[in-house]
């Protein structure tokens, strides 16, 4: 798989720093699950975090601290280490971080119709940003919309096209306020995306405004 559209430095660095809303963390983790380049890049941002930790002054810990920690590890020493969890529920479409939020594979997604054959499922994250799975039938366009904040769209199955280019599985589109776009699902296959927004979308034209409450975006 060749991923062509990647995460930005801003997003990688903020993910490494732990400074993003949960929904954004989810899409970053999902993209990295599909993209070796960004996985490698994340490694270097974590290494910067390590270097920052090294430059920290040390704050004295209380005298009882070490003993408290040793007591904690002794208290649990009898536990055997569990192996890293093996992935029982492999899924061709949903990488592990998404399966955690869906509660299983693609068949476990609780879709709701959003009209025109489009379906969506909002995932349970903190409210400072929203993560939703979108199911877009082949050849269907999502209404033209601008947005106030950030919109991230990651393709999980099929492909879509808009002014930003052609996006296939693993590709992520990072759209900011300036971009008005009308993603159109590729004609050959239904498209499943993970979309994350940190502010409500603004649709243009009457029909999309009616659709907006249904889409909840």
């Amino acid at each position, binding site marked *: 798989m060749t991923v062509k559209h990647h995460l930005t*430095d*801003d997003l990688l*660095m*903020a993910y*490494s*720093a*732990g*400074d993003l809303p*949960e929904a954004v*963390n*989810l899409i*970053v*983790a*999902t993209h*990295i*699950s599909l993209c*070796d*380049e960004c*996985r*490698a*890049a*994340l*490694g*270097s941002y*974590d*290494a*910067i*975090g*390590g*270097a*920052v*930790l*090294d*430059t*920290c*002054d*040390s*704050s*004295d*810990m*209380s005298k009882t*601290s*070490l003993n*408290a*920690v*040793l007591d*904690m*590890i002794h208290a*649990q020493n009898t536990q055997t*280490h569990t*192996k*890293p969890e093996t*992935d029982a529920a492999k899924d061709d479409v949903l*990488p*592990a*971080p998404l399966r*955690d*939020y869906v509660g299983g594979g693609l068949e476990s997604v609780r879709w709701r119709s959003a009209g025109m054959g489009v379906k969506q499922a909002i995932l349970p*994250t*903190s409210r400072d940003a929203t993560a939703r799975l979108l199911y877009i039938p082949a050849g269907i366009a999502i209404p033209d919309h601008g947005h106030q904040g950030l919109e991230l769209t990651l393709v999980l199955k099929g492909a879509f096209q808009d002014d930003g280019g052609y996006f296939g599985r693993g590709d992520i589109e990072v759209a900011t306020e300036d971009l008005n776009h009308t993603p159109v699902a590729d004609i050959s296959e239904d498209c499943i995306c993970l979309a994350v927004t940190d502010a409500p979308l603004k649709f243009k034209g009457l029909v999309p405004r009616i659709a907006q409450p249904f889409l909840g975006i």
Partner: protein
Amino acid sequence: MFTTNMLTSQYQFSPVANGIKIRDSSMAAADGTETLTKGTTNTVVPFVDDLVAVRDTRDEAAFIRVFGHFGPRVKSFLMRTGMDSALAEECAQEVLVTVWNKAHLYDATRASPSTWIFTIARNKKIDVLRKQRRPEPEELPWGPEAEPDQADVVGLQQESEQLGRALRDLPEKQRELIEKAYYGELSHSEIADQTGLPLGTIKSRIRLALERLRHSMK
């Protein structure tokens, strides 16, 4: 995982450096010969050997050394992220307990001790301050366990040293912004208050700082 070419603007996939292998801890513990190959000699970064000893032989003396070095730094780091001293102390203790409990996941070819402990401290911060769980990328598929190469361990640790130097050598304003980003001091509206700079300027300074780091790693 970190290699020089990863900080260049064109990331390249490096099979060795990306640490594709995922260790089976039970095998590591059961197989003494494997232990010897996992990075126990002359590394340039302190605490690699100690962390490996904690991992492979549950060496408490080594753990106490790790605690002595990293405990106070983790506490300091957590205080910078906004915790008061008492909470930071408690969380630092929990971070070090996690170091002990998850030592079987430590891979000296993938991360320096500082980097690995940073990720644990960061996750603790998200857990406590944001009250969120943190979605992590899917682990790479299990392959045949490649022999961990001592040269990879040393190479990675040397690069970590080099990165640390490069960070210290940055112009002060750029270095401060990088640090603030990792302490979480660059989010929200206080950005402008704290730095007196508009967001665009902050972003371009961080970009410059990253460019310099990349350049230093070439």
